[in-house]
């Protein structure tokens, strides 16, 4: 790695982004936007590169009458990003733009609302809400049991539990502030969740194919078991378009629960005098509530009220795909394998143990739900 390049450390990026956003808030807006351009172009190039590879393989197979496996552009985009970030590193000029991948994820999810009728969202959301509640309860209990058994620091255990039960990095960052955990603990928890999320991208589709899971069942599983929203979306899209949509819906339901879980932890730690007291609980819940869930519901409502014509719905779906393309490129580009490994093996091993158990439990839940509700 050259000295002029910076490997995108997923570990301290949360901290770095809050620091850099403070520094950048002094800069004029046009300059801040200009800074994003190189990284955005890189996201587009990597994502589009994935699309080109996918189409080239399909064309080659057709021309030579070969049956080649149809590997979605999602995997290619992530792989290109991973290779770039972990070999040559990411030059500083691209860092700010690449960090916007999370923004595009949310834009994509809101626009994806156009591909769901509100009635379906409420029906499927209701089913997934029940499953999400079971998943969160079991995951929290399991991670706390493991944390105690392996003598992890209690606050680190809380962060790992929230990260694996609710929604990955966002939940960890929200909880860190609420329970006054230190940055090292949250970096370790984030590293463990991201490393396991990256692994799930490659393992989940393989397991699901070997079990012949339906698109709906797989989407449900990915949404329940994969922790970070970007990885859950990518894991779903790797299987099929329908699975991707379902994974997003279930993951969004899980994300909506973040406030309640974080509030629970904040109350617990403040009752022990180790975190600030929570004032207005309703205000706390609203502050932690992911706004993009409301955007998703609003677009779904507009689509259900036939505000959009069929071609317009297609265009919105396509815009959502473009936004996800940028996201998937960012998932690979921000994953730094060496940095993730530096955080120590114990949290990673405990996280891995917990994740394997959660994946198995949620798979059983999905099989049960598939039979009960014919999801």
């Amino acid at each position, binding site marked *: 790695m050259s000295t002029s390049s910076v490997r*995108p450390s*997923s570990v301290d*990026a*949360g901290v*770095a*982004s*809050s620091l850099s*956003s*403070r520094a950048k*808030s002094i800069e004029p807006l046009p300059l801040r936007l200009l800074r994003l351009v190189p990284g955005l172009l890189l996201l587009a190039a990597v994502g589009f590169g994935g699309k080109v590879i996918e189409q080239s393989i399909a064309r080659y197979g057709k021309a030579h009458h070969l049956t080649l496996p149809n590997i979605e552009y999602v995997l290619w985009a992530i792989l290109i990003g991973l290779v770039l970030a972990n070999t040559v590193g990411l030059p500083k000029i691209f860092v700010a733009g690449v*960090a916007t*991948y*999370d*923004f*595009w*994820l*949310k*834009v994509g999810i*809101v*626009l994806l609302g*156009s591909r769901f009728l509100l009635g379906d969202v409420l029906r499927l959301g209701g089913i997934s809400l029940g499953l999400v509640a079971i998943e969160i309860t079991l995951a929290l209990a399991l991670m706390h049991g493991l944390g105690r058994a392996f003598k992890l620091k209690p606050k680190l255990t809380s962060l790992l539990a929230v990260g694996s039960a609710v*929604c*990955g*990095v*966002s939940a960890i*960052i*929200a909880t860190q*502030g609420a329970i006054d955990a230190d940055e090292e603990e949250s970096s370790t928890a*984030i590293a463990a969740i991201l490393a396991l999320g990256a692994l799930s991208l490659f393992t989940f589709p393989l397991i699901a194919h070997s079990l012949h899971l339906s698109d709906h069942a797989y989407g449900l599983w990915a949404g329940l078991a994969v922790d*970070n*929203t*970007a990885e859950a979306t990518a894991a779903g899209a790797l299987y099929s378009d329908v699975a991707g949509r379902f994974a997003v819906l279930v993951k969004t339901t899980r*994300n909506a629960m*973040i406030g309640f879980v974080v509030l629970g932890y904040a109350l617990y730690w403040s009752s022990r005098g180790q975190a600030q007291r929570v004032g207005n609980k309703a205000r706390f819940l609203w*502050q*932690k509530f*992911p*706004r*993009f869930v*409301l*955007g998703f519901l*609003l*677009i779904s409502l*507009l689509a259900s009220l036939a*505000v*959009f014509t069929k*071609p*317009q719905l297609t*265009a*919105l*779906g*396509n*815009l959502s*795909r*473009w936004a996800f393309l940028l996201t998937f490129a960012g998932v690979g580009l*921000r994953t730094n394998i060496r940095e993730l490994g530096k955080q120590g093996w114990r949290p990673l091993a405990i996280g891995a143990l917990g994740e394997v158990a959660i994946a198995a439990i949620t798979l059983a839940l999905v099989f049960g739900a598939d039979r009960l509700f014919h999801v």
Partner: protein
Amino acid sequence: MSDEIGNSETIESGGTAHAARWRLSLDSWAVLLALAAAALVKLHILNTVKW
């Protein structure tokens, strides 16, 4: 990075506190951008996008 939630809550001191109160989170910007895109599609401005 991250699906950072509640980043609009960053506590700023002194004169920037007022500005911070009115600053939207990335989350809210994402919703606004998506709604703007939907409006542009509705107005047939973005309907030429092909996937």
